């Protein structure tokens, strides 16, 4: 059997694949954070809670309204995104002129309120969300058994990442957005409704988190605390990629998934910390992050 650093090739390939699947998740979540931070300069600590709200909306929608997975994938981001729009319009906007710390505190507080409220009603054990029928079962890749649903997560998350990158970097709307955050007064002078643009961007970032939440619902138990443990890792990914860099978030997300996956084979005890180790090294060598622009 071919060995790579003492690990059979098949095991190595299997871990690489799983790392890629997890990486796609990190990419999707850190992308939402990066969009919000890059364009609005808000450190959105409610991102984990909004991801959790996405999963919960899918679960409750199925339980009480009979909304199936595919419809949820479409509707939930819209509903949770609309909720995000309300948050921006009525809360975040009021403190937009203050130091970034206030936004951080506000969103952190909101996250605690969302989590606490749901814990009160649903407890913390979590609930199962059934995998849609056509994605059940698995694919035999020769070196491993890959559950079909995980393969789908990889495809869906990457497609969404590319779509977002394209919208922001390659379309006129994206150009308005970038210009609006660079110099909002000038943009307003040109007749562009900048506040509306900002509200919608925040809503979009929240919708991305909710989309990831729906994708995660069949994978992990849906519980009010599912977002808080993930949020810290996702923040580290954003910091490594460079705060606000769209492409940086995507590539770093995938890379960190793979690094974490390989750590789980070679030294599992460190798998929770390896990303932070990378973060420290990157910050020491390149404080703005791998893809960040020098100030």
């Amino acid at each position: 059997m071919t060995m790579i650093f003492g690990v059979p090739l098949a095991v190595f390939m299997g871990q690489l694949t799983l790392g890629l699947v997890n990486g796609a998740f990190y990419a999707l979540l850190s992308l939402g954070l990066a969009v919000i931070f890059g364009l609005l300069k808000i450190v959105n600590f409610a991102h984990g809670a909004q991801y959790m709200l996405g999963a919960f909306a899918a679960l409750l929608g199925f339980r009480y309204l009979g909304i199936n997975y595919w419809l949820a994938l479409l509707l939930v981001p819209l509903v949770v995104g609309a909720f995000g729009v309300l948050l921006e319009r009525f809360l975040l906007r009021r403190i937009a002129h203050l130091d970034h710390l206030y936004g951080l505190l506000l969103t952190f507080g909101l996250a605690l309120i969302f989590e606490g409220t749901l814990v009160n009603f649903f407890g913390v054990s979590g609930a199962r969300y059934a995998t849609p029928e056509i994605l059940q079962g698995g694919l035999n890749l020769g070196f491993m058994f890959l559950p079909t649903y995980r393969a789908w997560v990889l495809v869906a998350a990457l497609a969404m990442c590319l779509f977002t990158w394209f919208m922001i970097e390659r379309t006129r709307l994206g150009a308005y957005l970038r210009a609006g955050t660079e110099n909002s007064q000038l943009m307003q002078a040109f007749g562009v409704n900048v506040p509306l643009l900002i509200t919608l961007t925040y809503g979009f970032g929240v919708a991305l988190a909710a989309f990831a939440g729906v994708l995660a619902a069949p994978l992990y138990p849906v519980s009010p605390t599912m977002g808080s443990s993930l949020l810290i890792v996702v923040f580290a990914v954003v910091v490594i990629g460079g705060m606000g860099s769209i492409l940086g978030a995507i590539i770093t997300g995938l890379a960190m998934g793979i690094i974490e996956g390989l750590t789980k084979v070679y030294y599992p005890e460190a798998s929770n910390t390896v990303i932070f180790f990378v973060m420290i090294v990157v910050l020491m060598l390149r404080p703005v992050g791998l893809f960040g622009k020098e100030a």
Partner: protein
Amino acid sequence: MTFIKKTLAASIAVAAASSLAVSTAQADMSDGEVRIGYLADMSGTYRDLAGPGGLTAMEMAVADFGGSVDGAPIVISSADDRNSADVGANTVRGWIDQDNVDMVGGLVASSVSIAVTKVLEENNGLGIVSGSAASSITNEHCTPNHIHWVYDTYPLANGTAKAVVEQGGDSWFMLTADYAFGHALEADVTKVVEESGGEIVGGVRHPFPTSDFSSYILQAQGSGAKIVGLANAGADTVNAITTASQFGLTQSGQQLAGLLIFLNDVHALGLEATQNLLLTTGWYWDMDEQSREWAQRYFDEVGRMPTMVQAGIYSSTMHYLKAVEAAGTDDPETVRAQMADMPIEDFFARNGSIREDGRMIHDMYLAQVKTPEESTGEWDLYEILSTIPAAEAYRPLSESQCKLVQN
């Protein structure tokens, strides 16, 4: 630094308590009330295991007892320890110093229980630990001021691992949470497996907590072991089992052995993912008529079936109150001695008695999770396979490191 602070704080607390000369040795109820504190994780990982439901169970016990002992009303205060040993210890210190609390119940996270029982020992209080797993609570951490009620890691490892090996599961792969509790459980299981003629062929120590187990499950599949033992708890166990079912672990001929798994975990996971899982439990709501009757009353209050911990909180509170009544005082030392003198035989505990190390031993049960076809309702989850007699279930006193045991 924190150690010094803690020691200082503790010494000040002791000094304050003794200088105030709070008399606890009155021959009747201190302050004319029996005061019970309920300390548990009310909002975090262990909420569904004990949490608000445990408080309801305690309130049910007080109500069933009549709400007073010899005319002295029974008062319950409750607090959330947030799974923090510091928060727990400070809360209990406050309860003893300011509120004259006579007994502290609940007590879930092992780290909190160990810290709280130290405070109780310094202040001559009384605690009944119902939710914690660590067997060290009545071993190296035993005190004359607490009793451990429902279960601990010793019978969990012993009951489940032994039964699994006897059924032919003689090669094990261990999935262990990388902290004290996981290591202890892994050591207990390894010992039992090897003594029963099985072997440990491999294992992974995963960080606590871990949400994605796919990588570890893949390694377990590659190990060729017949049994994958889960030396973890709560959300980690739930996540590991979910992932194992997604990766078709059981379909490919391997079997899972959950070493610390509760009714609420199985309920959350669903029978599809957990079917045929072997586990050891201290109580199950559908064990017999007595259990069903109490569980139904609990269900009517809470809307969920009780876990063994919630049932144990009722049982221990009831036993405490009976002891207070029999002794005619709520003085901790007298009541603890009285509790140990009375056998425990109720809907929860069979052949129950309290040993000198503070361990309440009672019959434990080996259970198997039902298949979706066998189950007839939302909470019809376990089938009890056999009874592990009280005398065999727990760590024998001859192996005890407890300072209260003469070896």
